[in-house]
Structures are given as structure tokens and as C-alpha cells.
């Protein structure tokens, strides 16, 4: 291993093609990213279906976990969207579980962090913003654009204020994508850098190893927190679109 030269801590984010598939010039290969996304979805499906198989009135441990995750996201949706937000619960639950499982699976060594790629988080953020805008326009028609003109502002301020509001609205998917991507990438890069120190120091590698243990705790918290924040912000944006401030 030492003869291969220096490995960069950024090598773990390389997308490797597992099964090359070419559709008329477009590369739609099955990559390690695809594999781990499928693993995350399979993990969620197995977790939810197998835990709920017994349907006991007094839940056992697995059923309690499944019910807790349902209740947690339901609480988030209820708090931010009100009672009429119930129809958005499946979307919020899917978003939360997918991001959480993708983040959590990446904690295992030798796996691949799906959400550490900007394209994946950007796809999720674009999905959210398109959904929110579409929901707003379907519900309010063209009156949806009154979102960009706050109440009680004199009309001559509009040419200054409206572009600013539009810009801040468009900054939402950017910040959603960047936040998740930067958190995951920074966390995993730090883990790799400290792992490099452990190898370098030999017996003195105990110290960076202790740091890695603490970092793993932090990364587990971040995995959950980032999924929660993504979901909460999605619900807040949906609330804005549905109730126009």
C-alpha cells in the first residue's frame, strides 16, 4: 500500500462505474452511487415492512422504531404545515428517510456517500423547489407571485424589493443543496484526513483514533440533523407557498 504513493482524502468521492450502460451516446451506467441509492431504498423498505409485520398493539423494539420515525416526521409536517398539510406527509417522509438512510449508510467504512455529491443534493433541492412553486401556482394561480411583494410596502419600492425577494426565493434550493453537500463532504473528508494521520503515526496513532471516535459521534448526529433540516425547510417553504406568508 505504501508503494502506491499518496492517496488523497478526496478519492473516496470518486464515482466508479460498476456496469457500463450506453443509451445512444448517453452514459447511464450503473455506478457505485446508483448501488448505494438502491441500498438505501431497500434498507428503508425492509425496515418499514419487516418492523410492522407483527402489527402488535404494544410495539416491540423494531415496530417502536418504525412508529417513532413516522411520528417524528408527522410532527414536523403538522407543526409547519398545519392540518391541511397531511397530503404532503408521504413526500416529507420519503425525503427524510431517503436522506437519513443515505447519510447513515455512508458512515460504514468502505461505503460511498451518495449525498456527498452536489448533483444528488441539487436534484433533491430542485425537486423540492419545483414542487413548492407548482403547488403554490396551482393553489393560488397568478396571485402566487404576491409572495414577492410583502404587504404594506409603498409601490415605488417595488422595483427594488421584488428582484431582491425573487433572488432570495431562488437562493433557497441553492442553500438546501449546498448545506447537505458541504456537511457530508466536509465530514467524510475530515474522517479520511484523521485516518491518514493514524496510519502515519504508528503507535502514536491512538490520539487521532480518539478524535475519529468523537468525529463519528458528530457525523451520526449530522446525518440525522441534516435530514431533519432538509425536511423542516421543505415544509416551511411549502407553508409559504400554500399560505403566502
Amino acid at each position, binding site marked *: 500500500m505504501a508503494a502506491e504513493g499518496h492517496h488523497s482524502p478526496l478519492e473516496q468521492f470518486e464515482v466508479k462505474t460498476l456496469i457500463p450502460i450506453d443509451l445512444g451516446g448517453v452514459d447511464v451506467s450503473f455506478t457505485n452511487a446508483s448501488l448505494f441509492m438502491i441500498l438505501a431504498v431497500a434498507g428503508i423498505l425492509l425496515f418499514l415492512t419487516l418492523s410492522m409485520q407483527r402489527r402488535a398493539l404494544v410495539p416491540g423494539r423494531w415496530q417502536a422504531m418504525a412508529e417513532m420515525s413516522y411520528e417524528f416526521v408527522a410532527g414536523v409536517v403538522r407543526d409547519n404545515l398545519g392540518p391541511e398539510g397531511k397530503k404532503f406527509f408521504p413526500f416529507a417522509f420519503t425525503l427524510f428517510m431517503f436522506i437519513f438512510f443515505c447519510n447513515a449508510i455512508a458512515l460504514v467504512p468502505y461505503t460511498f456517500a451518495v449525498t456527498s455529491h452536489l448533483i444528488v443534493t441539487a436534484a433533491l433541492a430542485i425537486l423540492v423547489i419545483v414542487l413548492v412553486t407548482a403547488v403554490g401556482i396551482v393553489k393560488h394561480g397568478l396571485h402566487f407571485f404576491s409572495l414577492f411583494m410583502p404587504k404594506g410596502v409603498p409601490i415605488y419600492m417595488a422595483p427594488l424589493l421584488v428582484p431582491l425577494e425573487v433572488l432570495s426565493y431562488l437562493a433557497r434550493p441553492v442553500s438546501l443543496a449546498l448545506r447537505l453537500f458541504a456537511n457530508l463532504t466536509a465530514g467524510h473528508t475530515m474522517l479520511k484526513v484523521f485516518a491518514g494521520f493514524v496510519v502515519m503515526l504508528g503507535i502514536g496513532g491512538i490520539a487521532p483514533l480518539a478524535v475519529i471516535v468523537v468525529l463519528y459521534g458528530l457525523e451520526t448526529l449530522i446525518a440525522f440533523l441534516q435530514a*431533519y*433540516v432538509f425536511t*423542516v425547510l421543505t415544509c416551511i417553504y411549502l407553508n409559504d407557498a400554500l399560505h403566502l406568508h
Partner: protein
Amino acid sequence: MDIEAAKMVGAGLAVIGLSGVGIGIGNIFASFISSVARNPAARATLFPSTMLGFALVEAVALYALLISFLILFG
């Protein structure tokens, strides 16, 4: 100036913004602690907002780190 040296200086300058983030996170949790100290019953309602605020402020830290990495490795 050597381009490598300039990159290092740029990366170092980019992370100065993290001082603001430290103040921000301290602010959020100071506010949470003093609110719970005044009204311990509010702990359950305030905790999710605290976590949300923390994640949002941390995101700014990571934007600064991202710029620093882009300068250093880009």
C-alpha cells in the same frame, strides 16, 4: 507571487469568516439555555428550533470551508 503560495493565503483568508459562525452558534445556544432557565417547561418546544438554527448557522461555516477548499484545490 507563486500561485501555490497565493492559493494557501487565499484558503487561509477564506476561513476567517468562521469566527462569525462561532459567535452565531454561541448566540443560539446561549439564547436556548437562558430561555429554558427562565421557563423549563418550554424546553420541548424550543429544542427543535434550536437544532434547526444550529444547522442553518453551521451551513454558513461549511460554505466558507467549501470556498476555502475550492481555492486550495480548484
